[in-house]
């Protein structure tokens, strides 16, 4: 348990909430009929998803030839989208795990939705390599199991196989972490519901009653899952970067890739969390729980990781020149001034320059600025992956095989379809489960509620002393 809260900390729960009010505010949205905005958004998402499914069926029917990927640019739109989505899938577990270990209480406002986002983003990501195999019905060949094909085993020395293990593990652990945290909140929904809804939530809340021993074990489990998820989340994008770094392609074969990819993943993940949170808090009236302080904290993370990514771009350029290796020099010359110069400009502008406005506190705390910069970052990080993948491959060792790539309507359809999948799942989640971790918010109310902090704390002096007393006992 943490020590007493610093006086200069900003409150994280606004509006003088009581425990019951927190329940009303956070569980309430699951109990009302969906509003028009939700229905319109859901319809659009399902239609987009439908178009994605159509494009996927088209791909399966006609084969990968329906894509514009070619012999030179074999990894193109699909792997770009894969890396982009998997990067977005990094913020959720980072928020839940690393911020839990660092005792950053502001995680409680956003962790539930961010974890959900992680899970849905990883699902979208997994779709691309699974399809890119060309015959997805044989994808189970990727798993090492005793077989009659030789026996022919998978290559355990290959980063592509490490990736398969990393991403399946990441998905499974994130899902367990997320659902275990959700169980007590589903029990709250259950205890307020009637009829069929009560039966449904009773099934999914697993018989949770809030026993002291169960809470104790629940906290242990969360803490240890956080402990093992922390290296896991760092390993996933490290391994994704190995897909490139262990090759012999100039521009890919660089040791800077793992930290640079991990920073980029956190950067894009937080940007997507911001995009979603700004909309979610508005739609569900959660301004008291996802406060300007939460938004500012996340903007600080975006600024730090954006600057790290930006430095990595500049270091890459410098090292390419400094190496004296002409192929490396050409690869980077080609990135900046080659046929895809526009994607390099997009990458630099959106990732290196745009987030720098967050040095200003007023902009960090401004909702509109936050929203637009988060969109810029999402776009910029897509360009980054496109620059690394397509631009690099377009100009390889053999000028006779140089090529240009532009996605076909089928590829665009699949990409757009993953947005449909992502938002359909997110909208369903936001309807059926509390988007803010209700029990966790209640647990920090007496330390971070606005009525217990700063000037207001004086009126609650009795409570405050008692809280510290309780925590003091907890230490022994």
């Amino acid at each position: 348990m943490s020590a007493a809260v610093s006086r200069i900390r900003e409150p994280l729960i606004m509006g003088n909430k009581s425990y019951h009010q927190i329940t009303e505010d956070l569980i309430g949205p699951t109990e009302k009929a969906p509003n028009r905005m939700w229905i319109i958004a859901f319809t659009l998402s399902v239609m987009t998803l439908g178009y994605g499914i159509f494009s996927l069926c088209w791909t399966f029917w006609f084969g990968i030839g329906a894509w514009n990927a070619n012999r030179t640019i074999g990894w193109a739109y699909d792997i770009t989208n894969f890396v982009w989505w998997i990067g977005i899938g990094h913020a959720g577990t980072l928020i839940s795990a690393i911020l839990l270990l660092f005792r950053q209480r502001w995680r409680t406002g956003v962790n539930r939705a961010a974890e959900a986002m992680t899970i849905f983003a990883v699902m979208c990501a997994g779709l691309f390599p699974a399809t890119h195999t060309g015959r997805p019905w044989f994808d189970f060949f990727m798993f090492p199991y005793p077989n009659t094909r030789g026996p022919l085993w998978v290559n355990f020395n290959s980063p592509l196989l490490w990736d398969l293990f990393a991403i399946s593990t990441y998905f499974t652990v994130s899902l367990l972490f997320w659902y275990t945290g959700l169980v007590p909140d589903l029990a709250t929904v259950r205890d307020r519901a009637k009829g069929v809804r009560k039966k449904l939530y009773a099934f999914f809340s697993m018989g949770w009653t809030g026993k002291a021993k169960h809470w104790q074990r629940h906290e242990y489990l969360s803490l240890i899952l956080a402990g093992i998820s922390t290296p896991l989340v760092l390993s996933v994008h490290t391994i994704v970067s190995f897909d490139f770094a262990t090759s012999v392609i100039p521009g890919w074969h660089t040791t800077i890739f793992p930290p640079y990819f991990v920073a980029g993943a956190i950067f894009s993940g937080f940007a997507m969390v911001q995009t979603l949170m700004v909309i979610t808090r508005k739609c569900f009236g959660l301004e008291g729980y996802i406060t300007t302080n939460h938004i500012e904290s996340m903007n600080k993370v975006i600024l730090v990781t954006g600057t790290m990514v930006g430095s990595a771009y500049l270091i890459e350029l410098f090292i390419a020149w400094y190496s004296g290796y002409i192929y490396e020099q050409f690869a980077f010359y080609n990135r900046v001034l080659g046929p895809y110069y526009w994607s390099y400009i997009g990458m630099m502008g959106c990732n290196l320059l745009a987030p720098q406005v967050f040095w200003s506190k007023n902009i960090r705390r401004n909702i509109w600025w936050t929203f637009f910069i988060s969109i810029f970052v999402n776009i910029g990080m897509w360009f980054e992956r496109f620059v690394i993948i397509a631009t690099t491959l377009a100009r390889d060792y053999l000028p006779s095989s140089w090529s240009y790539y532009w996605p076909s309507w089928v590829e665009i359809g699949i990409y757009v379809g993953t947005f449909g999948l992502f938002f359909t799942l997110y909208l369903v989640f936001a309807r059926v489960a509390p988007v803010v971790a209700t029990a966790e918010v209640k647990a920090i109310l007496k330390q971070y509620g606005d009525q217990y902090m700063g000037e207001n704390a004086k009126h609650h002096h009795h409570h405050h002393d008692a809280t510290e007393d309780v925590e003091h006992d907890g230490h022994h």
Partner: protein
Amino acid sequence: MKGHHKEVLFGLYNDEEVLMNAVKKANKQHLDIMDVYSPFPIHGLDPVMGLEESRLHIVGFIFGMLGTLTALIGISWIFGGSLMFHGDWPTIFGGKPYWSLPAFIPITFELTVLFCAIGMTVVFYIICGLGFGVDNPVLDDRITDDKFCLAFQTNDMDASAVDNLKGFFQSTGAEEVHTKTI
């Protein structure tokens, strides 16, 4: 639970600090607490209630080790080249030895984490008696909302002992006192 009904007398408190003081007082009076239920974990309650530390981390460690061994033994058995295994199908990749440990580390790490997480979570649900479709009796619907519940089992108590408990609840600031058979 058929044939084994529990008579439960429980008090609902509005605040976890009041509940905590009640638990301390119950200890002083040597009252036999059945359980405490709350909408969120109350820090510092475990030692007061005399709950032992959870040993879930040991479960996690054992499953983690199982994952490590599964990966290392599995890959070694397939690729061979080590002292223990001649290999089911040894293959040379890029001129590296059959048994090239550094290349096996990422998968070994992932399986360690995977086994640890699944094992620990499943064991958590089993030892807590929780699972999809489990229907545990709920003392009061507001315990998952804003009430903090202290419960005593009164099956073998005479009327005066029950009255004593009711007096205890009143003196410790319980907002409501109820009985329920579960």
